[in-house]
């Protein structure tokens, strides 16, 4: 059997990214869209760590560290926004958020 190579990790990463994209496009709940965004970030992280491991460079992991930090900041602000929005509209569905339409 072939040993696990870079391409296997990249395939897993690509599939995870596509699942996240699927969630962002199709689902209608803000929180699910939000989790899908996180999933896409994680898929990119997986690719970065795989590249870092198989090229014997440390830069990928440092990059992942920064991405995780930015994602944490995004979580804090995004969830606060969703909760504030829910207080105003009593809904977390994208169909109900049409204030800027028309």
């Amino acid at each position, binding site marked *: 059997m072939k040993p696990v190579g870079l391409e*296997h*990790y990249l395939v897993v990463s690509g599939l995870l990214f596509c699942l996240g994209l699927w969630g962002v*496009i199709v689902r209608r709940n803000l929180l699910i869209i939000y989790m899908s965004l996180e999933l896409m970030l994680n898929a990119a992280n997986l690719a970065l*760590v795989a590249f870092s491991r198989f090229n014997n460079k440390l830069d990928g992991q440092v990059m992942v560290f920064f991405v995780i*930090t930015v994602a944490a900041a995004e979580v804090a602000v995004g969830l606060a926004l969703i909760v504030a929005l829910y207080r105003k509209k009593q809904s977390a569905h994208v169909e109900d958020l049409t204030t800027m339409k028309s």
Partner: protein
Amino acid sequence: MDLAFIIIAVLTLASAVAAMSLRNLVHCALCMVMTFAGIALTFLQLNAEFVGLAQLLVYVGAVAILIVFAILLTRSEDAKKEVRFVSSSTVVGFGVVALVAVSLLAAIQHTQILPPQSVVAPHVSVKRIGEQLMTNYVLPLEVIGLLLTAAMIGAVVIAMREPDPADSVDVQQRNGSPLKLDPDSKKTAVVANE
């Protein structure tokens, strides 16, 4: 192929699929936690202990708790509003996702991947990452610190309950009523309110 890799990858992908397709929000969040844990395990498998443990702490610890909190805070009665039907957006979304998936996989398959430079996994210690962060990446590190501070303040400001005008009138009347007997103290109270 490594059996552990297959198990972890299948588990991660399956829980991601479940998180994207389940209807109950709490179930979605729990499946998503499993996906994050699987990704952390993959990091550990790739000899990236620091990043893997950071992923475990940040995502499985903090982000999961925050998401569950947000789900419980924003749970509304119309949970069944998201009915299962095939709308035009589903079809378009499926098309876009299929396109992206095919192009990504084709790109991966057709790329000439160089053999790993070292057969033995490199030992990446936290010390080396710390040295990198303090030498080559010191400016991004500072910017990230600033960003985190700004995000924290921003989250607090956004999530703070806006002062309701009706409430504040109530409070003023309640505070002002016992003072009406004395005009002088009322004046000072108004000044204090302003």
